[in-house]
């Protein structure tokens, strides 16, 4: 068995169990509002834009573009210090929502990270229970 995973893990909540279950199945699902037509992140039952309760799960394409990033050289907690440098990112998904993530498959060097670059989701099974959606340059 691999070394114990030592970085923080999400604690799924009743309204996000589905999101994390789908991530485990290597699918990215978002919450879509039939009241205002917007898709949003993070998942919650009542739309944060128009407060409609007419919302539902919708599978995302997994494609998006880089909105903003940072290249972390000083790990924020001891567990991250063995993993620097790493690229934190905000990704604008095709469906209109923006989500936080990390980039993989990109040199952690500003010369290689371009805001606006096309990205696609990839899934990292960090433990048996939890899979984190990460993003890599689109193929």
């Amino acid at each position, binding site marked *: 068995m691999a070394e114990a995973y030592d970085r923080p893990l*999400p604690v*799924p909540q009743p309204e996000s169990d589905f999101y994390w279950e789908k991530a485990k199945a290597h699918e990215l699902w978002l919450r879509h509002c039939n009241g205002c037509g917007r898709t949003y992140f993070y998942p919650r039952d009542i739309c944060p834009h128009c407060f409609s309760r007419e919302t539902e799960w919708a599978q995302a394409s997994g494609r998006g573009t880089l909105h903003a990033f*940072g290249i*972390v050289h*000083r790990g*924020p*907690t001891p567990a991250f210090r063995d993993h620097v440098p*790493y690229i934190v990112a905000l990704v604008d998904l095709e469906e209109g929502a923006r989500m936080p993530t*990390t980039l993989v498959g990109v040199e952690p060097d500003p010369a290689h990270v371009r*805001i606006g670059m096309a990205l696609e989701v990839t899934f990292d099974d960090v433990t048996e229970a939890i899979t984190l959606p990460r993003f890599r340059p689109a193929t």
Partner: protein
Amino acid sequence: MAERSASAAIVGVAESDEIGNVPGKSALQLHAEAAFNALEDAGLSKADVDGLFTAGYSTYDTGEYLGISPRYTDSTSVGGSSFVIHVGHAAAAIAAGRCEVALITHGQAGRSARAPVVRDAGLPIAQYESPYGIIGQPIAYSMAASRYMHRYGEDRTRQALAEIAVATRKWAVLNPKAMMREPLSFDDYHDSRWISYPFHLLDCCIVTDAGAAVVVTSAERARSLPKEPVWVLGAAEHHDHAGISQMGDLTLTPAHVTGPAALAEAGVTHDDIDLAMIYDSFTYTVLVTLESLGYCGPGEGPDFVADQRTAPGGDFPMNTSGGGLSYTHPGMYGIFLVVEAVRQLRGEAGARQVEDVRLSLVNGTGGSLSSTGTIVLGVG
């Protein structure tokens, strides 16, 4: 011009006995020392206090520790801006007759706390940001700064961040209470190590142990006290997200609401302000806040701060204490902006005193550029 006044005034300000590296004090000790010193500065006693304000802790924790049982209580906790917001809340409570002497206290052992502050694992930030190592403000703010650079140009943004770091240090050199008092060159800035690109170490605030307190009272009571009242002329507050991933426009803070609102309430304009105290958790916080407040247009911040304009001797004095970047920053820094504004307005700022400060704008920023409180303070 008629003598300036308002329904409430700041009459006492102080830090804890020591600030900086203070390993021998708990956060609550720092609250208590600051409260003692600010009441002494005001010429009031603990028995006079009937309104209690703090952030981080609940006021029932600080109230118990201090032995204060208030008839007005406010633990509004929206990050480092909270204490600036408390000044506005205190003024409103006093105007409404809900209390007469409001005590705002702060204390954090940011360097030396023996127990870490634990956050609720059920919050969205813990669920969607922390697992990715998006933890702590340097990382959140660095992402916002990357967006600004992309939008308005990397080189001119970098120069602006350097200007702010260097100018702020010049003020700290003049402040005996500042932690960082060695002069800083542009090369020092550019050569400092990366924390989270695009932030160098010298884009980031220092981390200290410190407490501070502010006493606010009614106009009538203020006039009976030894020191000149510092009037609370305008106040506004706003927040629009908690986590950085939920911030709509990373190049515009809630100060775009609070700046104009506080100035309008005070009946003054940007040009009337003699001293700007702008929360500087990071160099970028200052750049984006000046634009958001309306001091200049979007993307014009780099021109606004060029050529050490905010340094001693410049025509836009700003963060004259040396700021969170070089004076002190225990985690939530907002109250220290108020302390310095009051000292400048009273003419108590010693070697760093700016000439003839009659009006000061104070803007606190909290969380991940999440919340702001803006107040306008003035003397006679």
